[in-house]
């Protein structure tokens, strides 16, 4: 079983690298955010696989926090228009 987990972790790593290549090819801002989201999902999956493969349950918490921050980062990405009025 742990063999499978390790190979799965490696493959998700490959996928992460592919997503990054896709990201670097995209000139448009929204595509970059989309690729970042994809990288986030991959990262969460890889962190989970490492938690099981290395038998470090603490990494499950880290994966959970990464998932939470993925949502935070999405908000930070899309809300960046300057404020027109001053108060």
């Amino acid at each position, binding site marked *: 079983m742990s063999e499978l987990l390790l*190979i799965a972790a490696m493959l998700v*790593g490959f996928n992460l690298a592919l997503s990054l290549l896709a990201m670097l090819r995209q000139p448009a801002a929204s595509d970059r955010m989309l690729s*970042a989201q994809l990288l986030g999902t991959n990262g969460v999956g890889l962190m989970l696989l490492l938690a099981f493969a290395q038998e470090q*349950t603490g990494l499950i918490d880290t994966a959970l*926090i990464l998932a939470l921050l993925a949502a935070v980062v999405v908000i930070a990405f*899309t809300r960046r228009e300057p404020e027109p009025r001053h108060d």
Partner: protein
Amino acid sequence: MSFDALLILDVLLAALLLMLAIAALHSHSMHQSIILFIVFGLVTALAWARLKAPDVALAEATIGSGVAGALLLAALRDNRSGSAITPSPGRPAWQVLSVTYLVIGLMLTAAWAFLDAHANNSGPRLGGLVQAELANSGVGNPVTAVLLNFRAFDTLLELAVLLAALLGVLLLGPARPAPRPAGPVVTQLVAWLTPLLIVSAGYVLWVGAHAPGGAFQAGALLAAGGIIMRLGGSRYSGLPSGFWMRLIAVGGSGVFLFVGLAAMSGDASLLQYPRDWAGTLILLIEIFATLSIAASLVLVYLGGRPDAWAPDQERGHA
């Protein structure tokens, strides 16, 4: 076989980090650079996980990638509203060349030193000492034991550094204007995400005593809650006003110092907790440190003195 798969993963992660760093440093668009930097933080967290440093992975994800990314994105907004940055001409060739050679020389020296130290891995290690003394520290997580007991003085000064940075930011001027109220999607996301962030901050703080986690990660998670409330259009980002806000901002270093000094009333020296009380005192310090760290990070995210910083009675006139 199994070892090989992990080694390939390591090489992949290393290549990813290099690519991300180069792209982030040299991409044409600053927006792209910052997104790449946030992804760089994510991959770094994976590298920490591979090196069996889950505490650092958690801190990197929350602080190094999350809060620092949000700070940089907010700073990017300053560009558009503020003065246009003059596209400065590139450096002269002799500067580029000499700096490049110098840095390459430094890099090779450092690599040689690292490999040499690595080959003669015989120097004294503190790790064994930490494991031996862990039972006396009051907590079960060795990293928390180092941070809040064995080297508590460093952590106290670290909180002081954070406080100094906060004071610096506050002195430099007023906060950025609040973003306008958000649309329904963001409002909804913020509404369910903020309570989850608060609950997980509490969890990470509590779990830090015996597993990866602790005050810094918890504080950064709380701060993330404040930051998205701000992005959702909340003017005060969930911060209290005036007196209470100032009290929370200094509370972390204050309680830490107080406990450290109180420990001296016996025969002990500064920050040398009584053994039976260590666990409780560490938790007490960590609770206040978490609140302080969260408030400081949100305040520096605002980019300066918010209106609510003023004493309560002045706010009515402003």
